[in-house]
């Protein structure tokens, strides 16, 4: 898959990382620019309106959360967070602030490319209307009839499981925090609701996955939330 005319802005203060990300992206035909500080990044953003932003949370001049808000105020843009390991709290905050996804350092370029493809698909999908069926591998969902099939067999889901599944599919490819899911389902988020989500998710996974230890569709991001596989 090539980048065609997709423009990517990399805001990252580490020169080596920024360079090698840019190099890889250019090889895949993406147009990219790099910024070493928040100020430079925001300037380049307003000037060039990139389609996707790659944002390092640990910038020297400004707080990552502020940058996310500022970018989203200008225009709805997929933002990918690049963070160090073990910063779960910051990650969750960034995701709740509107970032689309995150990738933890150190990462493999393959992972990053996959995330960028997800963001790209989201861009393409934005104009589309709500799909009435969803199909990936052996999983088929008929939204109108509220039916879920694994292979040829229909699977019976509880209303809560079905709702979770639909929320995940609507946001497929993105990491959904426990908070986000709880708010979507109940309208508010509490500690207990995160606990309920974990259990419901595990049950759902047992119903639609062939092997729950090596899931095809619902992936866990420990300490952050869940991601519905998009490819």
């Amino acid at each position, binding site marked *: 898959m090539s980048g065609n005319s997709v423009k990517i802005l990399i805001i990252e203060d580490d020169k080596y990382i920024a360079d090698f990300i840019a190099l890889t992206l250019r090889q895949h035909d993406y147009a990219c620019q790099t910024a070493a500080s928040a100020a430079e990044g925001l300037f380049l953003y307003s000037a060039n309106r990139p389609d996707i932003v790659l944002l390092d949370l640990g910038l020297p001049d400004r707080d990552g959360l502020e940058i996310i808000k500022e970018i989203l105020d200008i225009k709805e843009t997929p933002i990918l967070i690049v963070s160090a390991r073990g910063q779960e709290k910051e990650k969750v905050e960034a995701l709740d602030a509107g970032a689309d996804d995150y990738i933890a350092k150190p990462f493999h370029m393959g992972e990053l490319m996959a995330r960028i493809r997800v963001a790209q698909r989201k861009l393409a999908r934005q104009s589309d209307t709500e799909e009435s069926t969803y199909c990936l591998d052996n999983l088929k969902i008929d939204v109108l009839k509220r039916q879920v099939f694994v292979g040829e067999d229909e699977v019976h889901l509880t209303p809560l499981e079905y709702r979770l599944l639909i929320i995940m599919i609507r946001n497929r490819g993105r990491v959904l925090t426990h908070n986000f899911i709880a708010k979507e389902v109940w309208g508010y988020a509490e500690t207990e609701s995160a606990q309920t989500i974990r259990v419901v998710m595990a*049950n759902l996974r047992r119903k639609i996955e062939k092997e729950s230890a090596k899931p095809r569709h619902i992936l866990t991001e420990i300490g952050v939330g869940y991601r519905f596989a998009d490819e």
Partner: protein
Amino acid sequence: MGQMLQRPRKGKMKGKGWNAHFLQVQNTAVVLAVATALSLGANALGIGRESVTMIYLLGVLMVTVLTGNYVSGFAASIISVMLLNFFFTSPTYTFVISQSADLITLLFFLITAMISGTVMSLLRQQRELAQNNEKTTRLLYEFAGGFMHVNGEKNIAHKGMEYILRHTGCSSLVTLNEGAVYGGSANERMTGGTAFQIPGVSQSLGSLKVQAGISGIGNENELVIKTVATLMGTALERESIYSERENIRIAMEREKMRSTFLRSIAHDLRTPLTALAGLGNLLNENYDTLTDEQRKELAQNMSEETTWLMNLVENILNMTRINEDRLIIHKVEEVVDDVVEEAVRHMSGLLHGRALEVSLPDEVVTAPMDGKLIVQVLVNLLDNAVRHTPEGSPIGLKVFTQKDKVVFEVSDNGPGIAPDLLNTVFDSFVRGTQPVSDGKRGIGLGLAICRAVVEAHGGSIKAENSVEGGAKFTFHIPGKESHERE
């Protein structure tokens, strides 16, 4: 000590009051009556006056013995003289003395009776003193011995209160300077009562409040309480010295561990770094002369080395967290599936053709845990299995519940663990004294982290060789609920 022992005697006298005096008077009267009756009988039988005097003398001695008091001895002597005078000197039945010999006899009798009475009562006092001394020594011995075997602030306080209750019948309350309060239930802390200091070497360690009865504490009980307070002070002081020494020992051990840790890391970093530098150089300097195939292989090797380094750094980071402050963990009810999935996903690229067979419990199991750390434990165990098995051999990961525990089991069918290492595999840097062989990868660091993490979760980990061959690592953490599959 002498002063200490006199006081209780006085207290006793005061305490006895009029009843005791009455008893003494009664005793004296009875003894003298008996002596008079005997003397009258003897006199009727024609036995001489000398023997009669002896009977009275015996009576006076008995009075002293019975009453233990020289005042009554004196009184008995004087009464005896009067009785002798009345009944046995001529003219009888009068208090008149007609013969000077009788007067002298009576006088000598009086002196002898008084001296022997005094000596007798002194002897008795001595005996009482000795008995008291013995009792006090016994108490002291009991207290001191009792505190000897008591450890911990709480136990010391309770022991002290127990002694006070047993020997004085008073309930008490211990308040230590650090703020801990023992004794009495929370809602009925005593309001009145007498406070005693618990002495320490340099300063008072706290206070001991004793709730006395209506009659007050009393001198003897006060002594007991003060003794207990002093012994409590000594015991508490001993306790604090002990814990201080323990802290120093732990700090020293930690310091030692830290330096070993650094040395280990340096060793472990050197190998892959040397390899990386070499590979990079080779690629850079001979790029044109290398074939595409060779270049690809070199790059592949570099990326493998780096992956290994990343895992090492991850472990080092966790290790520092563990070393810092006894590992701070953030426990959340985590579904076991999620943790296993993340670990399996992490390992997917590192298995090199080995099949990973995963078995999960049938129902959804959750347990309070720090998900990231348990993932790290699983990754380390799986990585360990990968490193010790030939390519293509299967590795098993099994999770099941046992009563209220969640058990994780990682097994392989490699050569197993050397028997002499079985007990030490989880110790960090076991190789400490042995020379580090640079060819061999990985230190006990990974497994040491496993143990630290599992223990911080209140579980335990063990390594064994399974009967079918191969190594088996099992750890369990306390779980709570299992949710039935809907």
